[in-house]
């Protein structure tokens, strides 16, 4: 085998803390449910025949796939499947199966209604499939608790997992592509791109306060920092020395996005979950590990 392939195989097979995927298993469905909450409350308008739906445009590029609106009972049933499978995943009840059901329902609603589909809608089925492909639910969950109680065996703390590697790479690939898209767009040629996006209905009181007090040049500085972070994300997250500062910058950036652009907060939360799960240094996983150990019962003798 070529030495590069050997290095990739070694990297993929390196044991990683199972807790990393558990963080995604718990955090991602909550962020996704938060994003879906208003849609779920109006399921009959969203994917059912109670609301407006774009007609079948027969191949129009803006309509990736035409799914006719559902009857009200079917729309509410899909909503129930979304909520129950997400909660199953969060609680660790048949976690991997719940993740597959949740991912399938998410893919269906993303295709069913283009109008209410955003980045979270398209990203979340893949995130949940990755959760299903990994050792999700083997720690910190209802099934893990009863399995341990029954068998008395301690669950594995570390395992090789391609799914965890995938979830680590995903935000970095998104940042890199997003940074290049920004550089090819207006971010290198116009100094107030960031400023131009804080004035519409996404604006929160916090964004308004910042826009009112910060001088114009600070928006250009933020713009430059975001662009540099995104374009060079593979380097920041690739080198061990810059990984933790990159994690802090990424989490800070998404917190600011969540605070400044109201409806985008769920996307911010999903990205923070992926960053924390993927790149939190091992020593900061220890408190979560200690919690997991406390929740793992010891089988009573006899």
């Amino acid at each position, binding site marked *: 085998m070529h030495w590069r392939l050997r290095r990739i195989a070694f990297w*993929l097979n390196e044991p990683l803390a199972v807790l990393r995927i558990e963080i995604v298993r718990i955090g991602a469905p909550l962020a996704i449910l938060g994003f879906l909450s208003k*849609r779920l*409350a*109006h399921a009959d*308008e969203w994917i059912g025949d109670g*609301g*407006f*739906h*774009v*007609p079948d*445009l027969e191949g*129009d*590029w*803006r309509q*990736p*796939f035409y799914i006719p609106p559902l009857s009200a009972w079917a729309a509410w049933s899909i909503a129930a499947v979304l909520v129950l499978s997400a909660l199953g995943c969060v609680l660790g009840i048949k976690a991997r199966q719940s993740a597959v059901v949740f991912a399938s329902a998410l*893919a269906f609603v*993303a*295709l069913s*209604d*283009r*109008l*209410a589909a955003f980045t979270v809608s*398209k*990203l979340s*089925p*893949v995130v949940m499939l*990755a959760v299903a492909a990994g050792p999700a639910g083997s720690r910190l969950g209802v099934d893990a608790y009863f399995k341990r109680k029954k068998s008395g065996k301690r669950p594995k703390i570390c395992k090789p997992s*391609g799914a965890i590697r*995938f979830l680590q790479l*995903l935000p970095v*690939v*998104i940042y*890199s*592509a*997003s940074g*290049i*898209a*920004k550089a*090819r*767009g*207006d*971010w290198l040629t*116009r100094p107030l*791109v960031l*400023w*131009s*996006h804080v*004035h*519409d*209905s*996404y*604006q929160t009181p916090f964004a*308004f306060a910042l826009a*009112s007090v*910060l*001088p*114009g040049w600070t*928006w250009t500085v933020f713009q430059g920092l975001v662009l540099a972070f995104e374009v060079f994300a593979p380097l920041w997250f690739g080198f061990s020395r810059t990984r933790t500062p990159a994690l802090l910058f990424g989490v800070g950036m998404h917190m600011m996005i969540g605070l400044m652009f109201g*409806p985008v907060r769920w996307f911010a939360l999903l990205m923070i979950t992926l960053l924390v799960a993927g790149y939190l240094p091992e020593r900061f996983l220890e408190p979560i590990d200690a919690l997991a150990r406390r929740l793992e019962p010891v089988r009573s003798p006899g």
Partner: protein
Amino acid sequence: MSPRTAAWRARGRLALEILAAIYLAGVWLDGTGTGIPERVLPRALSYFLQVAALFPTAAVASIDYRAEGFVCQEGQWRELDTRPYFPIDANDKENRFSRVMHFFRDNRKTMNALDAYLVERHDAGGNEDGIAADRSIGGVRLSSLRIPIPPPGSVLERPSRRPLASYPEEQRKIFYHTTRSKLSERCGTDVESTK
């Protein structure tokens, strides 16, 4: 585990790793604007790769979309509040009415369907939409509002929903209205002008 099962598991794992690599490459190629995923994949698949090209350009204006209904009894256009008929995220641009305008405002088939939907919903009554429930509407006029972005350092105002008529003419752009013949048909009288 038997050697045969182990071999199948290894193959399955390799297949998943290849799929994951293709997905990540697809997200990167789509986000960077190569257009390759769109050319080689079915639309329903490439759609799930479109997650990375976020806010690449500057906003030229703050954009909002509005509707007016043609009140048959008055022969006049009056602003129609679409929020009761699009209740998800009613007050921001993630609202489905704003989204249909954003994506499909130049698609006649979709606009005709929207026209029919709004007329039917208003005429069914029961919602506060700015036009009295006992006044039927024969059609709709749909416009965009393009509100200029203030320069840094200026006195700012929180975005709020003001009546359409309060915006200067140059900030409003009508891009769809029900045809006169359709208005006449729905109102049951000869509508002479749609101005």
